[in-house]
């Protein structure tokens, strides 16, 4: 009997020899092709552009200079030399996005991801474009994927900011015209009683309609015209005599850019509001607010604000030199938002200094105001807000037996939840106490509770 091992080796040797003899000629081209691929493999890898060469390219320089049309043409030309390069495809996507062609941007990102599915960067920019397209479901999924893979990177931090925005606000309106309608019911512990002397506690129904039309709506610059109307009905017949009505028109503009890597957003708004009481003009008010928002690190932002307003009341009182409240009020202040818990909560701190100069001496004031607030996403997707404010007002030219100073404290609590993407329900309670130690008749305590349904369209 043969040694089984020797037998196997012999059989194997014969097989290989036979196989070689039979297939040598047929396999030669295949070996040559495989060899060529192997030898040229580094050459194939070089078909992708290096990061340094890409950043130094004329198309990249055009992109950095904000010439996105030029950059797009350049990147597309680069594709002929580096076909299907995922980096070039990504920047074709970003260029389309900056030019506002979001559908083309999405296609380019998807083509890039088909070649390089692990690219966090491309997935992040795809999600940004999906957000701009109003496709919140796709954007949420892709932003979530970015935060899962690279939470501490620039992509992850920014994705967290977008996820917070998607989770708490309706999708941005793609149209130029948008509006808000609110139906409310409120109880007020300090509505003035009418001449009949009814109780000063009262309930009211209210309707508010706000319309906004965007004259300019680019990601960097927005200019909008705004108008609103507010109406109330008091079931109490005496209080209903107030027949309160307010209307306002205005214009808002804001611009966003980056300075030294810090996002900054200057804005200016003008508003004129008019109030009617029992069908008669009660007064009008012009106001201008200039603001500058800026980022403070990755989890905080601040807004510096200056406001100017001029009141013109129909009736100046019995002795206008003392009683007229026509005049100019100004204030300047700073507020900060510090975000935590993945932007699902924020602490707000603010300070304002205000001063008023009116025709009547009794309206001249100087005041310091401070506020602190906490906002957070609670269970069942409820947004909760709690804020406290305190201000001290000095009546600088007060004509009276004693100088007048007052301290006002307010506390507000509100809970709100979206019923659908566009309808939100909210309940709120606020309490304001103003104390004027030397003039007790002017002190008051006022509690307001309200329930409202808002519809954004």
């Amino acid at each position: 009997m043969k040694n089984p091992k020797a037998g196997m080796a012999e059989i194997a040797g014969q097989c290989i020899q036979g196989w070689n003899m039979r297939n040598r000629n047929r396999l030669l081209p295949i070996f040559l092709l495989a060899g060529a691929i192997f030898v040229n493999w580094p050459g194939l890898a070089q078909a992708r552009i290096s990061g340094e060469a890409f950043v130094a390219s004329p198309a990249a320089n055009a992109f950095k200079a904000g010439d996105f049309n030029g950059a797009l043409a350049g990147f597309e030309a680069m594709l002929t030399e580096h076909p299907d390069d995922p980096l070039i495809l990504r920047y074709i996507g970003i260029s389309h996005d900056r030019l506002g062609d979001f559908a083309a941007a999405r296609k380019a990102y998807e083509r890039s991801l088909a070649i390089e599915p692990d690219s966090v960067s491309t997935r992040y920019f795809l999600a940004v474009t999906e957000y701009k397209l109003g496709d919140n479901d796709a954007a949420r999924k892709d932003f979530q994927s970015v935060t899962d893979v690279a939470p501490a990177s620039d992509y992850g931090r920014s994705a967290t900011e977008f996820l917070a925005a998607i989770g708490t606000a309706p999708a941005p309106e793609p149209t130029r015209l948008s509006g808000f309608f609110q139906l409310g019911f409120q109880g007020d512990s300090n509505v003035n009683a009418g001449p009949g002397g009814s109780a000063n506690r009262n309930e009211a129904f209210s309707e508010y309609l706000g319309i906004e039309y965007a004259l300019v709506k680019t990601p960097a610059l927005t200019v909008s015209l705004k108008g609103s109307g507010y109406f109330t009905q008091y079931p109490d017949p005496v209080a209903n005599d107030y027949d309160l009505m307010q209307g306002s028109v205005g214009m808002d503009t804001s611009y966003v850019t980056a300075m030294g890597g810090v996002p900054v957003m200057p804005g200016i708004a003008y508003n004129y509001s008019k109030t009617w009481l029992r069908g008669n003009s009660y007064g009008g008010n012009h106001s201008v607010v200039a603001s500058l928002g800026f980022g403070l690190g990755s989890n905080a932002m601040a807004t510096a604000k200056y406001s100017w307003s001029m009141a013109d009341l129909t009736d100046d009182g019995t002795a206008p030199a003392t009683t007229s409240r026509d005049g100019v009020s100004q204030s300047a202040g700073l507020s900060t938002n510090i975000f935590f818990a993945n932007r699902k909560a924020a602490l707000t701190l603010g300070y304002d200094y205000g001063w008023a100069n009116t025709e009547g001496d009794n309206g001249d004031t100087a005041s310091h105001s401070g506020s602190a607030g906490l906002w957070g996403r609670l269970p069942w997707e409820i947004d909760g807000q709690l804020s406290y404010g305190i201000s001290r007002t000095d009546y600088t030219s007060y004509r009276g037996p004693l100088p007048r100073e007052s301290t006002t404290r307010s506390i507000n609590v509100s809970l709100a939840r979206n019923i659908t993407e566009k309808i939100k329900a909210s309940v709120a309670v606020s309490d304001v106490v103003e104390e004027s130690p030397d003039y007790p008749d002017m002190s008051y305590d006022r509690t307001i509770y309200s329930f409202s349904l808002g519809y954004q369209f």
Partner: protein
Amino acid sequence: MPRLITGPIDFSRALMIGATIAIFAFQVQTPAAQAQEAEAVTPRTELLRSDLAIDRSMGAFNDPAILRQRLQTPPEWPAPRTMPPYSQKPLNDGSNFCKLYPNNCG
């Protein structure tokens, strides 16, 4: 020819042998899988690093829409309005309101 199994099958022994093989295979498999995973993570991390350097250098994050998100404040829907301040027992300044409702001005 040698027989691997002689006599009736001992299930408890078979189970023990099977478990031993499974544990051994698992121990062999796990470092291999870990090594494979490490190999998979490294290129992704490298890609992330190089992409980030390129995107920062290009200013890709300076998209106004991205900057606006950085400056996003907590959501504020228009709050319910209340009566204007003259419901707060204002100073009796002889105004229209105080003429109408003299008892309600301080």
